[in-house]
């Protein structure tokens, strides 16, 4: 075995996986174990597979993914906190033939940008919204988010989220699914290979829907925040499965403009 040259193994016909060219070579700033990197990769892979790199404009949020434009090799705009759906609305209206997506966290989409989210959904803007929900403000250091679970601890709910004092976690995805302007609403995760495959299919469907001009597609990805949750990556994923998924169940919520019956 010792005399095998690397060239004997790395031949074009032996290549089973390579990084998509839509991802740049920049080293991601995300914490080890964070779901953002996987979510970025899936979006980049779908853009390559659909061959729409030159036709896609992405809008980044304020939050951990603010620097997403360093990692995707497409034209991107960095929006003010929560305003990405308004920014994307204009981009799509002015260039209806392009593919336009926003990528937003829970604080961005479900707190400060609630109005922009609901109205872009309700107008049925022909865009795709990727919503990363980890139940916490990661970038600012682990504060309570609109999606923080009841009794979940954060730096601004250090004794756990008290509903009497702090209100209830907000299910924005179920909320916007009720609006006539949304065409496809789904909730996915990226913590296992099987979930990654499902999430990628959802991302592809959500982007392909823009060709149908039937309304807005929203893909929520329930993710972890091991730094903010003060857990190891493995613990964080376990905690997510045991605590986040019961409240934020995975699966399609609205398909082809129709609500999916959920138990």
């Amino acid at each position, binding site marked *: 075995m010792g005399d095998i040259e690397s060239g004997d193994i790395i031949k074009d016909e032996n290549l089973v996986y390579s990084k998509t060219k839509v991802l740049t070579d920049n080293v991601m700033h995300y914490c080890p174990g964070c779901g953002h990197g996987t979510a970025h990769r899936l979006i980049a892979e779908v853009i390559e597979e659909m061959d729409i*790199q*030159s*036709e*896609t*404009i992405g*809008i*980044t949020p304020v939050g951990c993914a*603010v*620097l997403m*434009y360093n990692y*995707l*090799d*497409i*034209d*991107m*705009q*960095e*929006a*003010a906190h929560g*305003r990405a759906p*308004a*920014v*994307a*609305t*204009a*981009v799509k*209206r*002015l*260039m209806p033939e*392009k593919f336009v997506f926003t990528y937003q966290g829970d604080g961005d989409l479900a707190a400060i940008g609630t*109005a*922009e989210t609901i*109205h872009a959904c309700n107008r049925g803007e022909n865009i795709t919204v990727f919503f990363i929900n980890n139940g916490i403000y990661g970038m600012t250091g682990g504060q309570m988010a609109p999606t923080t679970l009841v009794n979940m601890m954060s730096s601004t709910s250090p004794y756990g989220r008290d509903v009497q004092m702090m209100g209830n976690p907000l299910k924005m995805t179920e909320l916007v699914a009720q609006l006539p302007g949304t065409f496809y609403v789904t909730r996915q995760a990226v913590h296992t290979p099987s979930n990654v495959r499902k999430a990628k299919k959802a991302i592809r469907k959500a982007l392909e829907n823009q060709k149908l001009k039937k309304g807005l597609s929203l893909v929520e990805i329930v993710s972890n925040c091991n730094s903010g949750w003060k857990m190891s990556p493995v613990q964080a994923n376990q905690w997510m499965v045991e605590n986040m998924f019961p409240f934020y169940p995975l699966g399609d919520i609205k398909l082809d403009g129709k609500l999916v019956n959920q138990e």
Partner: protein
Amino acid sequence: MKELKLMKGNEAVAEAAIRAGADAYFGYPITPQSEVLEYLMMEKPHERTGMVVLQAESEVAAINMVYGGAACGRKVITSSSSPGISLKQEGLTYIAGAELPCLVVNVVRGGPGLGTIQPAQSDYFQAVKGGGHGDYHLLVLAPQSVQEMSDFVGLGFDLAFRYRNPVMILTDGAIGQMMEKVWLDEQKPRMTEFPSWATTGKSADRERNIITSLELDSAKQEKFNLKLQAKYRKMEEEEVRYEKIGCEDADYLLVAYGTSARICQKSVQIARSKGIKVGLLRPITLFPFPKKPLFELAGRVRGMLAVEMSAGQMVEDVRLAVNGKVIVEHYGRMGGIIPSPDEIVDALEKLIKKGE
């Protein structure tokens, strides 16, 4: 061909936007400027030129739509009135920080708070000193007539793209609502080619375009701040616009913009009929401010009176411009009250007495 029409100032802005080849208008209703959006919706510019017109859910959303459209290299305009313009400040500082061109019309009403729907000039500080957070400036144009409301739309777009900077037309409820005859520019075609920095989709022959106002490296951020400041100094060198009326033999000078300048022209006539040699300097650009002509006139006149529909905001820039060379007083009305030509002459006579 140019076309003569009788229009409200707000309608003239809307019609001028279509004719200037604007790609989009995003706005939200607020008195006294709702005619801009109403006129555009009535005119169906999507049929005339393909221009996008959208009523947003808020002024906040509207200005961020402007950000998105401007980042695609398009000619985008929004309008609002004082409380709505306050809401747009977040978007404006991002637009300035991302160096995007756009046109914003503020049809000012009295404040603070919900204030009144009557005309005022009390948003001067907000318009010329930045308005939002961070070191930046808008380029600010101050029309005094419906004609200038129309003319400054095309000019505003040109300046916005020349400097990659947001431009504001700072007007008020009087000019927005009053009807005058206006020569409308001929229809310009919309752009078919867009600036190299625009996010129009990364073609294979270029690097990706990124529109952002974020820079986490302090040294790079300061370098960017210096670049912005150099841009503002260039505006001060090249874009100062003003009008002088009766200044050649003037012993005294009125300084006023917009509606106040219009009234002051009558005050100049009244004062001159009383034998007072008074002139008027009307700043047309409020940023950059006509500092040099004011400094020159400060050496020739005995006093200046800044007339504004505010508690005295532009007067501070007049004082900075003359740098103590001559006495500068303020006369103003607030709360939606428009001063009469006679009360301005009274204020001028008081200034003259004070000097004697």
